[in-house]
């Protein structure tokens, strides 16, 4: 099997930032008509490599060849003109403009200075048709789902005569159906000879779509492999550079305990009876005991987050009753929930979790300070103790309490958010997608932490789109479908991701 000549070849790329070698002699090649996955933990150099490739950064060493010609990009526009288009994780389009306007913004077809609206709409529709999408291009972008918005971003990228398409975490906010749609489009583009560079934290997706992968670790090239020739375990081992014994060991634990955990405890920590909210979640009944990990599984939008928000008082329940420690309560605000030792890490770290402009220290003590009120500041020495303790315990990188939280990587931001709640010593910890968008190493650490906390008697409500993760950690799994809690399954040997998937799909009560 002879490979065609690479459309893109990078050799010996080096990039240095003050104090860090972000890239060190990295080779990378991209063949036309392939989907190439770029793999590595957070901080391995993936983003830097992409930014070098798209002209955002200059390189200190090495050279880039595009279609056999040596190139040096002065900026993102130059890279784009050369045929390298990028679609970033956060769709950066204007949701208030129409689909057609978004595709052609800045490059509107004009005649005598006037924009030719009809021609623009026509061409937009044609472009989207190439991606097998048939929508009203004059409707505002905001009226379409995130997946469609992503496709629009891709259409925009393709119209610039792309030969190389870079998709940076395109699937992190899509549900399974939308991912499938995106993959169909990617396969189509592949057939048209476009080289696609794909970055994702979801290993299953990598294995489904990619032909070849390049693995980076600490700014160095670990290797280039055909996806079909590398097992997932081998891949993860190469990414984090150590054996996955930790993860394996975790695997069997909760299942073994599950039989005794929920039995023999008379008063449940939390008992929701027919709790519901119109338009968000149908009335559900759920009990959680001390030291128990209850998982919630279901598709995006199936009501997982809505349950969490009701139990935390972030939304008001319309129906039903809630008991905490046997006492009837009505949680009108998150504050009321916090005072009853319930903590909630939102799935949306940036919008609902962290205060980006504050430091790691301030973000960590925030909930404790809020609970104490502003008249009783936490003494500086106590702050240092608490913050140092959790920076160590959760190995937050960099271990600098005065670093602004916005400068941390996603995984470390998640740990800061966890630390904020852990210093409150909650009785119930609600984790909504705590491992989304973070690397394998941090993911394993967070999973281990959840197991430890529940061993220590803390109750955990664990929400995740990754069924393996839910199964690995939970004693009991609640399954959601169409805003309804359809089943609660004890975790045992007979419960597998297949049975879970089946329950999600069929909605059968067991």
């Amino acid at each position, binding site marked *: 099997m002879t490979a065609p000549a690479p459309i893109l070849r990078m050799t010996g790329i080096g990039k*240095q*930032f*003050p104090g860090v070698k972000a890239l060190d002699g990295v080779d990378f090649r991209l063949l036309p008509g392939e989907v190439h996955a770029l793999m590595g933990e957070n901080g391995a150099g993936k983003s830097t490599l992409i930014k070098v490739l798209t002209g955002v950064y200059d390189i*200190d060493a090495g050279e880039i060849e595009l279609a056999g010609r040596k190139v040096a990009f002065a900026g993102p526009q130059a890279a784009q003109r050369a045929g390298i288009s990028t679609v970033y994780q956060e769709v950066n389009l204007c949701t208030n403009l129409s689909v057609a306007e978004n595709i052609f913004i800045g490059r509107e077809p004009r005649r005598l200075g006037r924009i030719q609206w009809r021609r623009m709409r026509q061409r937009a529709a044609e472009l989207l048709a190439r991606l097998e999408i048939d929508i009203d291009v004059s409707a505002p972008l905001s009226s379409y789902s995130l997946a469609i918005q992503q496709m629009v971003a891709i259409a925009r990228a393709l119209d610039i005569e792309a030969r190389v398409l870079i998709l940076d975490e395109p699937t992190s906010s899509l549900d399974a159906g939308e991912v499938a749609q995106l993959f169909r489009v990617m396969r189509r583009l592949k057939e048209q000879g476009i080289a696609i560079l794909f970055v994702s934290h979801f290993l299953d997706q990598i294995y489904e779509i990619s032909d070849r992968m390049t693995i980076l670790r600490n700014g160095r090239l670990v290797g280039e492999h055909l996806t079909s020739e590398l097992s997932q375990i081998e891949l993860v081992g190469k990414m984090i550079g150590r054996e996955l014994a930790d993860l394996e060991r975790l695997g069997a634990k909760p299942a073994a305990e599950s039989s005794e955990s929920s039995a023999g405890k008379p008063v449940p920590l939390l008992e929701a009876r027919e709790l519901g909210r119109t338009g968000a979640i149908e009335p559900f009944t759920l009990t959680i005991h001390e030291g128990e990990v209850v998982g919630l599984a279901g598709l995006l939008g199936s009501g997982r987050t809505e349950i969490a928000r009701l139990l*935390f008082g*972030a939304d008001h329940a319309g129906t039903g009753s809630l008991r905490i420690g046997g006492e009837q309560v009505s949680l009108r*605000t*998150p*504050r009321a*929930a*916090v*005072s009853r030792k319930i903590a*909630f890490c*939102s799935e949306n770290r940036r*919008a*609902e*979790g*962290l*205060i*980006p*402009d*504050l430091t790691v220290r*301030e973000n960590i*003590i*925030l*909930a404790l*300070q*809020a*609970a*104490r*009120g*502003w*008249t*009783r*500041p*936490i003494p500086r020495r106590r702050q240092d103790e608490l913050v140092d303790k959790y920076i160590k315990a959760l190995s937050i990188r960099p271990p600098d309490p005065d670093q602004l939280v916005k400068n941390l990587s996603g995984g470390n931001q998640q740990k800061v958010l966890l630390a*904020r709640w852990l210093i409150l010593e909650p009785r119930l910890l609600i984790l909504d997608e705590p491992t989304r968008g973070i690397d394998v190493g941090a993911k394993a650490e967070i999973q281990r932490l959840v197991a430890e906390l529940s061993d220590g008697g803390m109750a955990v409500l664990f929400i995740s789109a990754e069924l393996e993760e839910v199964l690995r950690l939970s004693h009991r799994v609640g399954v959601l479908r169409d805003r309804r809690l359809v089943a609660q399954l004890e975790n045992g040997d007979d419960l597998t991701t297949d049975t879970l998937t089946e329950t999600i799909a069929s909605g059968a009560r067991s």
Partner: protein
Amino acid sequence: MSRTLRPLLNPVLRHRMLWPVVILAALLLLNLFFTNGFFKVEMKDGHLYGSLIDIVRFGAPLILVSLGMTLVIATCGIDLSVGSIVAISGALACLWISELGDQNSIGGVLTAVALGLGLSVALGAWNGFLVAGIGIQPIIATLILMVAGRGVAQLITDGQIITVNSSPYKLIGGGYWLTLPFGIIIVIAVLALTAFLTRRLALGLLIESVGGNAEASRLAGIRSRGVLMMVYAFCGLCAGIAGLMISSNVSSADGNNAGLWIELDAILAVVIGGTSLAGGRFSLGGTVLGALIIQTLTTTIYSIGVPPETTLLFKALVVTIVCLLQSPAFREKAFRRRRRPAAAASASAEEEAGEERVGVSA
């Protein structure tokens, strides 16, 4: 030689208060050429006199209003009504004093002060209620009182300028205590109180948190409504004190003109001081510097004899320059030729060869 100095200078050069300080110093130096003995401070009858003292004394109301404004802006809000509150508080106090049998009675003046400040706090709380309770955008919520407040002030003064002749009241804006103008002492006290509340107690953290991300703050258990109410009420209080000071200084209350446009100067002072209009981090020291810059600018305009018809234009010009200098993006562009080698030096600090190359080019 420049290389040995750089590590020492870097903390200074990177400090975010650097540019406001440079600008203030430049303005003060400019005055030196136009006013004899500008920097002279002398003691007369146990009182301190001098141009520098005057700048702080006349700038006192602006500093006070700006302090309140800083906290409001840190919550990602804005308060346009401070000018009207200035007028209302002065008008109410003067009205009360003018109807006293003995305008020099300490008790009467204290009551007048309490009335003025009480109403100011209530008006501030009203703003807070509109913003936090009802959820109106701050610029609109406070615009209501900005417009209506002038009317209220004129209702209080009955459309006239109320003059008073009260020596205890005169102390607030025109008197001296412990050799210093009383206004300066008030500013120091309010600044100390604000710093204590926000930095020694935890109010500052909660304000920055609410301003940085309101929804995340709510989910962290912060009573953001309470924080907002408090901040707007405090801003009203600051404006109220400024109002007393202004009316006391001229012994009269002018519902129309007292504190006119002071909200714009205050917002400007806050921004020059490095607090972002997008909320979050705030700097009290920066705000005081900003207010002093604006007051010095006003003084300078008079002292260098800018023709009256061009004063506004001149002020706008200086303010534009100040804001540009404050912007890192602009500095990057303007000083690019000097910055490039510096950036390269830090990037290749480990490579000796590279360092020498930079040494030559620098």
